[in-house]
């Protein structure tokens, strides 16, 4: 393709090709401190190309394609090309990743113990993970948790954090402006701004961690904590996984292993500071 870029994120290498220069310039800026794949190869290919050939020039419209494709995916405007690249990488993971059990979850780590946060869109897992990542935890990923089915470790996938709407200002108050991508207004998901994880998260992207706690956060309620039974955790995690069914017996064994070995809590929180406080309390209890 006309323009291309390769990025290594945790154990996964992507090759992104584009018919236009601007999405890859934005991507290269956002992913400035990430390594290139050491072997020059990739696990997945993403393509950003005109939906129809004339749409390269006239009202450019970016179709998100690659090794794996959603036939009915809606194209984005060229101004949102960076988002298209991000969505393209996520799509390859969701449809094509078969080496690890993939959970739609955010993960942070401290003292070798990993905290997995999962929940529906809007539950606040991305924001919480991003915030914890600036307050003494290591951000392992805000979107996908990769469970190694051989040893039960979680592997980092620290792609740029995708902040939406209200979360953007929360993180802008916390983090150096140089780590942000451009603000994208009017996307299908509202306003979006990407944030590069800090140096600790990037330099340790090859380092897994043992899961210690599973959390189901819910934003916008009065603070409350309840324990979640194993059966419920199991069902919720099968729903949070994109490839659980495809992994068959190995996926089942890995997921039941995780559920049996790790406690789970549902927390409601009115604001992120309350949640961060609660989570640090849990960590101290687990460490004690």
């Amino acid at each position, binding site marked *: 393709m006309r323009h291309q870029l390769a990025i290594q994120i945790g154990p996964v290498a992507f090759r992104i090709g584009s018919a236009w220069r601007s999405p890859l310039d934005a991507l290269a800026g956002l992913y400035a401190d990430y390594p290139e794949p050491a072997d020059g*190869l990739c696990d997945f290919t993403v393509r950003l190309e005109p939906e129809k050939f004339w749409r390269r020039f006239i009202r450019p419209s970016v179709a998100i394609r690659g090794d*794996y494709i959603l036939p009915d995916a809606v194209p984005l405007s060229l101004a949102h090309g960076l988002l298209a690249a991000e969505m393209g990488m996520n799509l390859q993971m969701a449809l094509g990743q*078969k080496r690890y059990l993939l959970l739609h979850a955010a993960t942070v780590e401290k003292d070798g113990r990993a905290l997995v946060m999962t929940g529906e869109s809007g539950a606040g897992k991305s924001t919480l993970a991003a915030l914890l990542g600036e307050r003494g935890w290591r951000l392992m990923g805000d979107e996908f948790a990769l469970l190694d089915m051989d040893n039960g470790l979680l592997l980092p996938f620290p792609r740029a954090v995708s902040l939406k709407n209200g979360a953007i200002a929360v993180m802008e108050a916390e983090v150096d402006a140089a780590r942000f991508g451009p603000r994208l207004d009017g996307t299908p998901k509202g306003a979006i701004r990407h944030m590069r994880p800090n140096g600790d998260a990037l330099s340790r992207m090859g380092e897994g961690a043992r899961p210690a706690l599973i959390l189901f956060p819910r934003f916008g309620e009065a603070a409350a904590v309840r324990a979640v039974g194993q059966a419920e955790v199991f069902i919720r995690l099968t729903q949070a996984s994109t490839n659980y069914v495809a992994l068959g017996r190995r996926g089942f064994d890995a997921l039941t292993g995780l559920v049996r070995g790790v406690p789970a809590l549902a927390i409601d929180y009115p604001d992120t500071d309350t949640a961060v406080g609660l989570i640090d309390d849990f960590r101290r209890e687990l460490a004690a």
Partner: protein
Amino acid sequence: MNNARLLVRALRAPASIGDCDWAGLVSAARAEQLIGSLAFRMEGRPMPARIAALFEDARRDSAHARTQALWEAEMARRALAPLDVPMILMKGTAFHAADFDACIGRSVGDLDIMVPRDRLAAVEAALLDAGWEHVKDAEGYDDAYYRRWMHELPPLIHRTRDRMIDVHHTILPLTARPRPDAEAMIAASATLDSGLRILCPADIVIHAACHLFADGDLAGGLRNLWDIDRLLREFASPDFWRILDERARLHQLHGPVARALRLANRLYATPVDHALAGRPRLSDRLFEARLLARNGWGQEKRKLLRFAFYIRGHWLRMPPMMLARHLWTKATR
């Protein structure tokens, strides 16, 4: 080298692949739904660690695809068991059920079955009863078109398993010029130990050739031709070639079968019966170019040639006046 050609070479002669455009090979194979087959062909060969790991994933994934395909076949068998109708598996599911070499790494999308035409209504009712649903509007033009002119029912999808089933009563639309003998196909079909039925070997090859060269626009053609290569290598014998010739004539599909033999031989070096394959034709090159119209980013190339084959697919499917009416209806609704 063109990456589709690299893919073909890797399938045909894995030992000949040294240092190559691995990313391009993988993307082309994924786009052509051949990553599983390629992963098995390349097993144990020297290659970069990342590619070896990808191929291992693909091999494991195809084991799951097989389980799922056979389970879907079993679900349909159970749904139709009370009807006492011969239910014949077709395409990928049949390869897996019969354990043909063609099943190694073969992905399976929809479940394709064939039943006698006079039992279609009962079969459809039984499937609807067992949880399958219509994909398209059951009152609309498409539905009426399927029922009147197609070789299969409008597609059904299972409510909870989300898998499609295509119920065929013959192998070509009724509007196409050749008229395959569906009754003869069903009569010659065989029961496997598992109780599932498949077509006889010659008819399996004829169906694959017909699907590729007598119907449609050759989309996914490299995979279909790879099926044909594997099937021919497994079935080849003097008797088989004789029966294939006879049955190809019986089904009025001698031309497409000969074409399939020539193209399989051209691309995959498949040993074929040269009397049946006939002399190379100039147009074989066009078919080859169309089959290889894919680059190392997985993109479709040669748009004009693809479009020409798209037109050809419709041309084969129905007489010109009917095609005009059909396209008019589709364009104006």
